């Protein structure tokens, strides 16, 4: 049957037959690089058009519908337009930091792609500390935002960056704790082990109510970490123009935009991997017949289906909840989510020791 791992294996076999090992590794690295860049560009285009279409659908209007069939090439046209725009650096700005910030945003987004399993046996890098790696790298996101805000020498940018910094670091605590509750249930930080442990049911079903609490906390925290509404104080249009990227134009702005959307994809992919089984099809305990039928649906479809469902949920939030004020936002994290996720983690641990989960 057609599958990603089949393709990658046959490429690997063909290359290792044709070339010597060193050359094979180099060619594979080039292929991997091209694939990641392609995925990046594809995700950017798809997610922007999806955001606009979902918004239009929620507000009972048409959305973009001029460029291409049903407006599907709108984001491609926008990207081309941004590419030929002038990139300005304001006179008051710190030139080096101003131009370095988009680099960091993109590098962080791209490094986070490495441990994600896109399909069965199809993963860039299955390292033994996968989950720790993700939480370590994703906390560097805030550096690029603070850097952009400070270097711009603009009051809107600086305030946006400050708010965003406080927000991202705060919500990282409860995101980390809810990720940990799945690590407790699995006993491993390796992404492939976490997926394998869900072969007889996803953790959100197997882990009873504590897993559901952890899932809800995780979704709230990552919505805040990716600066999406209702937590988009960093770029609250009505108060701060565009927040930390007010001064950015042309491709530098597009890179921030792209990194933001790719980050949404990554956190949703991690949520899908931890709580909804990643590429693992929907299995119920020992119902061998049912599980076998579910296995006929390709694993990549399962992964992308779950991830895009979570992305849809996060886009849905945007049109459901009004924006919070900064003190309400920090109160929500420090006085509610942090104690709740801490107690929840202990509950999960006790549950796992008593073997109450399935």
């Amino acid at each position: 049957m057609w599958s990603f791992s089949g393709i990658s294996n046959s490429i690997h076999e063909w290359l290792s037959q044709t070339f010597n090992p060193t050359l094979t590794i180099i060619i594979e690295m080039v292929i991997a690089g091209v694939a990641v860049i392609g995925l990046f560009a594809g995700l950017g285009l798809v997610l922007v058009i999806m955001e606009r279409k979902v918004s239009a659908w929620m507000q009972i209007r048409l959305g973009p519908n001029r460029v291409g069939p049903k407006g599907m090439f709108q984001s491609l046209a926008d990207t081309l337009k941004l590419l030929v725009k002038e990139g300005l650096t304001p006179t008051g700005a710190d030139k080096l930091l101003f131009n370095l910030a988009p680099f960091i945003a993109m590098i962080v987004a791209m490094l986070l792609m490495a441990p994600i399993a896109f399909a069965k046996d199809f993963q860039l890098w299955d390292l033994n500390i996968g989950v720790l790696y993700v939480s370590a790298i994703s906390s560097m996101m805030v550096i690029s935002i603070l850097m952009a805000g400070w270097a711009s020498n603009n009051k809107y940018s600086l305030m946006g960056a400050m708010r965003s910094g406080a927000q991202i670091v705060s919500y990282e605590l409860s995101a980390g704790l809810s990720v940990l509750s799945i690590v407790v249930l699995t006993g491993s930080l390796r992404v492939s082990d976490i997926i394998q442990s869900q072969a007889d049911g996803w953790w959100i079903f197997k882990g009873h109510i504590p897993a559901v609490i952890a899932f809800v906390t995780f979704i709230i925290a990552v919505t805040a970490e990716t600066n999406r509404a209702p937590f988009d104080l960093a770029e609250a249009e009505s108060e701060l123009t565009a927040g930390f990227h007010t001064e950015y134009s042309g491709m530098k702005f597009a890179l921030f935009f792209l990194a933001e959307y790719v980050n949404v994809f990554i956190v949703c992919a991690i949520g899908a991997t931890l709580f909804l089984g990643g590429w693992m099809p929907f299995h119920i305990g020992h119902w061998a017949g049912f599980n076998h039928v579910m296995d006929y649906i390709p694993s990549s479809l399962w992964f992308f289906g779950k991830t895009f469902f979570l992305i849809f949920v996060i886009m849905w939030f945007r049109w459901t909840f009004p924006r919070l004020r900064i003190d309400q936002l920090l109160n929500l994290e420090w006085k509610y989510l942090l104690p709740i996720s801490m107690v929840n983690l202990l509950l999960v641990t006790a549950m796992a020791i008593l073997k109450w989960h399935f």
Partner: protein
Amino acid sequence: MIHLLQTGLNSADSGSFLPVAVQFIIATGLVAFLMFVTHMLGPKRKTTDKLQNFSSGIETHGDARQPMAIKYFLTAILFVLFDVEVIFFYPYAVNFKVLGWNGFWAVMLFVGFFLCGFIYILKKGALKWEE
């Protein structure tokens, strides 16, 4: 796909950080390439008005790098303290099955200290942002 890379690189040693270095180089190269292309394609008509900081149409008043509310910095420092405590949970979360109930009570003690610190900063008013 680059489980390809791993099979090539002796997958027993998954501590090999080569893939992350490759990703880093690819990302840097891509951004540098895009910046260069847009620099070549885009127009370069710079005027002093255009290069001013944007402040919604009015004149820019002074430098933006002024003292900010201390609360943001306090939040950042509290984050550092609490995040270290969260990081301490990682080794426990992986090994708790071996440690069993003894480990659980030890962690309860740790969480107790954590909560004492939390209640202390709550009483001190470090989390009062409204004022």
